[in-house]
């Protein structure tokens, strides 16, 4: 460990040399892998090629009618997904927190809700095509409809809502759970009906959380590349797919970059709103001694049945999609020939094996580095005093906040030519993952450190431990859960991400998710389903392992799933 932190002390602002060195190294990395690519992309879009500044590149792209439509489509889709997904997430969270479900039912809901979060892209899209496509299970087999088009706004929205509503659930459930039930009981004792309690106490207390969930979903939908690529089709173009097609179809890197810049402004606005406005408006409702296990009937039996029925239906739809995926991976050709076969898995473990190995290799490298990056930067920002630490935290969040399309295009532009030529290497993909998904670990570390009372480190010093011993024996073990959680997120995303890395894969290094996309475009849905099943299995195994490791640490209750939401 390069850190030998001094005890936090009153007046002195002497900077520990170890802290200074670490900060300088981190700044160099942030500069190279976050600021430099972004700068290069802006330069490429705004430069006229002779060292001058021009808006013509941007103007050409942004005055194109098709692209203007794509811009408004993106916002419309994001707003719809944000609203519907938040409502869905709230109902789930409310049911989980208030309906007094038996433990096993909560676990089923949690697992079903977790599935979309850790799945490779296209999963729900594949399910939509299998169900509602021209030869779909529901449209064709069940209803006997012919010539149905599944492509367009409705199915894209439906698919994205199913994929992203768990984010809202994970954001809102802790907020609902943290509302002291005495507060609701108090309102009831003052004469309010259950519905009145809900509308005048519970709901208002959740408003900041609801706003937060909406913004998170809005951002996720805005950045989503995989779903619209498959389901939106030509009728409903959106920005991320337009930028991708501009580059891969028309080989117009500058145009693609300009398009992705159009995405940057709404994405940045949403991120800043979420972090610096809504994030600071959470109500604290834990007042002194909590109600503990005091039972409280906050919902009527009828409402309970309605909520349960609703959640069960949604859960069944999610599970149905995944059952469909598994089934499709095991039959010859879904919708035409339902003979059982392992052919598709032979493809996966045959010609597809290279992509699987590449993905695992890249994930295995990115995982520890991303975890370490999150731990170091989080520790430095939370515990140390040095010039520019606020801006360091801000900069570290940029790649996390921006849609993957922008990050991917920026990397493509920045690292294609000397001085730093990384295109075609595994390093470019690894770096992309570390700086795009490491911030989850940073936030987890900061959150955990803020829970650790200063007196713990003082107690250690008082007992005779030096500052490095205190760090090693007290602080480090207490933040390790954040390290493992951050590590888990980097791994999961390395297995499932596509929006940024679609621009970074090469002949020498490819990824499973890209393989799934290739199979989808060739209409080889069987192998696509088999690849997806494999990814889901690997991710679940790794989550299980990390959960097992986390159980060894008694501090806090950090769960990988709980930080996937933020």
């Amino acid at each position, binding site marked *: 460990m390069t850190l030998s932190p001094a005890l936090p*002390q009153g007046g002195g602002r002497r900077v520990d040399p170890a802290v200074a060195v670490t900060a300088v190294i981190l700044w160099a990395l942030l500069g190279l892998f976050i600021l430099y690519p972004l700068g290069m992309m802006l330069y490429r879009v705004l430069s006229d090629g002779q060292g001058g500044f021009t808006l013509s590149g941007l103007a050409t792209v942004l005055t194109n009618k098709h692209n203007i439509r794509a811009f408004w489509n993106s916002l419309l889709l994001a707003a719809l997904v944000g609203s519907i997904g938040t409502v869905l997430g709230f109902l789930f969270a409310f049911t989980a927190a208030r309906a007094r479900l038996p433990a096993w039912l909560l676990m089923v809901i949690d697992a079903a809700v977790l599935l979309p979060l850790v799945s490779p892209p296209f999963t729900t899209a594949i399910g939509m095509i299998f169900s509602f496509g021209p030869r779909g299970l529901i449209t064709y087999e069940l209803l006997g409809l012919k010539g149905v088009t599944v492509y367009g706004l409705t199915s894209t929205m439906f698919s994205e809502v199913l994929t992203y509503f768990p984010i809202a659930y994970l954001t809102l459930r802790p907020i609902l759970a943290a509302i002291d039930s005495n507060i609701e009981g108090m309102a009831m004792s003052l004469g309010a009906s259950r519905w009145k309690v809900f509308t005048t106490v519970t709901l208002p207390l959740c408003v900041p959380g609801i706003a937060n969930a909406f913004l998170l979903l809005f951002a996720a939908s805005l950045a989503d590349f995989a779903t619209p690529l498959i389901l939106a089709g030509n009728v409903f173009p959106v920005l991320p797919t337009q930028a991708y097609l501009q580059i891969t179809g028309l080989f117009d890197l500058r145009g693609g970059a300009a398009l992705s810049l159009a995405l940057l402004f709404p994405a940045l606005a949403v991120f800043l709103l979420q972090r610096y406005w809504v994030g600071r408006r959470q109500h604290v409702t834990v007042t002194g001694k909590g109600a503990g296990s005091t039972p409280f009937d906050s919902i009527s039996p009828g409402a309970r049945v309605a909520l349960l029925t609703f959640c069960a239906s949604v859960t069944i739809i999610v599970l149905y999609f995944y059952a469909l995926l598994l089934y499709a991976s095991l039959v010859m050709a879904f919708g035409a020939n339902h003979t059982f076969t392992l052919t598709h898995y032979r493809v996966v473990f045959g010609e597809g094996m290279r992509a699987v190995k590449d993905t695992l290799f890249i994930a295995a490298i990115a995982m520890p580095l991303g975890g370490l990056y999150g731990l170091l930067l989080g520790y430095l920002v939370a515990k140390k005093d040095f010039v520019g630490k606020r801006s360091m935290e801000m900069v570290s969040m940029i790649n996390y906040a921006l849609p993957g399309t922008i990050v991917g295009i920026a990397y493509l532009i920045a690292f294609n030519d000397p001085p730093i030529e990384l295109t075609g290497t595994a390093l470019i993909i690894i770096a992309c993952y570390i700086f795009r998904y490491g911030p989850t670990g940073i936030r987890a570390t900061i959150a955990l450190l803020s829970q650790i*009372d200063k007196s713990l480190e003082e107690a250690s010093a*008082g007992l*005779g431990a030096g500052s490095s011993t205190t760090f090693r024996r007290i602080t480090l073990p207490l933040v390790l859960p954040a390290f493992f959680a951050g590590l888990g997120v980097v791994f999961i995303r390395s297995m499932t991400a596509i929006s940024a890395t679609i621009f970074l894969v090469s002949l020498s290094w490819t990824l499973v998710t890209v393989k799934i996309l290739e199979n989808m475009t060739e209409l080889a849905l069987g192998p696509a389903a088999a690849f997806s099943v494999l990814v889901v299995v690997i991710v679940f195994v790794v989550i299980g392992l990390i959960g097992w490791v986390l159980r060894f640490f008694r501090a806090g209750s950090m769960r990988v799933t709980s930080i996937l939401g933020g």
Partner: protein
Amino acid sequence: MDVIAPVRVQIEGLSRRFVHRVKGEVYAARDVTLDVAPGEFLTLLGPSGCGKTTTLRMIAGFEKPDAGRVLFAGEDVTYLPANQRNIGFVFQNYALFPHLSVAENVAYGLEMRSIAKAEIGKRVAEVLELVGLRGYEHQFSSQMSGGEQQRVALARAIVIRPRVLLFDEPLSNLDAKLRVQMRDEIRDLQRRLGITTIYVTHDQEEAMAVSDRIVVMNQGSVLAVGTAHELYHRPGSEFVARFIGRVNLVPAKVKEVLLESIRVEALGAVVEVGMAPRVAVGDEVRLVLRPEAIVVTPAVAVTPAKAGAQGGELDPRLRGNDNAHWTAKVASRVFLGEKMEYRLDCAGISLHIVRYNAGPAEVLEEGATVGLRVIESAVSLLPKEGV
């Protein structure tokens, strides 16, 4: 456990400033000077924000003073980091390491001193026995009650045989019954081990129960130092009088200065006071009357006409063998089991007195008129208000 050679702690002119958002520059501690005798139990007492915790943290080395020195056994430790001072510190929130078991928590300080494993095991077992936690070795703090956690924190602090034991409001997270029990345990343990101890609390009763001497602080400064007896009977300032125990402050005027006492006139009666600061005839002063220093008596020294004007006949059940200084009317009372607290109205001044329970017949009725006599030997004087 072995008795540790006690250490003298001297604090000289310790000051610490900080900048307050509204008040500007404020002293958290201002020129605090204390001399703690070897093996003494000293308590820093004061309201929240009085600087007692800041002072303690500077003694521990968690904070650096802007001025002044801290000496342990004559050695200047002002700039010695906390981990080299050999102190035992007990935090208000206990600060148990949540990822370590009870035994590991207690062993932590011993490991820092590179003590052999076998010896560590022996000493951990010994100290856990001492604080009554044998069998708790493999528990974690999250599984324990507040009182048990408190004992672990105590064991962890004393097992290293510290030169000085420091407590920062260690009992404030416990319920009232446990607080009394733990404070007695802390006091017994400290006596047995003989470690010089500095203890911070805002609870005057706790301070009186455990301390050899009490330091009363307010707004960063030391107002008074003394035993509980001295501070209670001769508070020296209104703040101390009001902070330690309950008090009636009655305005009075010096009538006569005698060789060993002073006669003052208060509420129309003459009271002779033994313990008094330097005063001259004609000075305005205040009598410091503790609730138990005023007793109820049937006899009336003041003019009968005046007594009659105050509300008729005295209660015939009252027994006393001395003349009353004043008459007063019972305004309200609170029954507390072993005692009854009364609020009396005496010539426009509200007096608070306490009578120990001598059976239901001795209870004074609300509205009754009684005579009051001051126990003169228990009275002291303060200068006039605002001086």
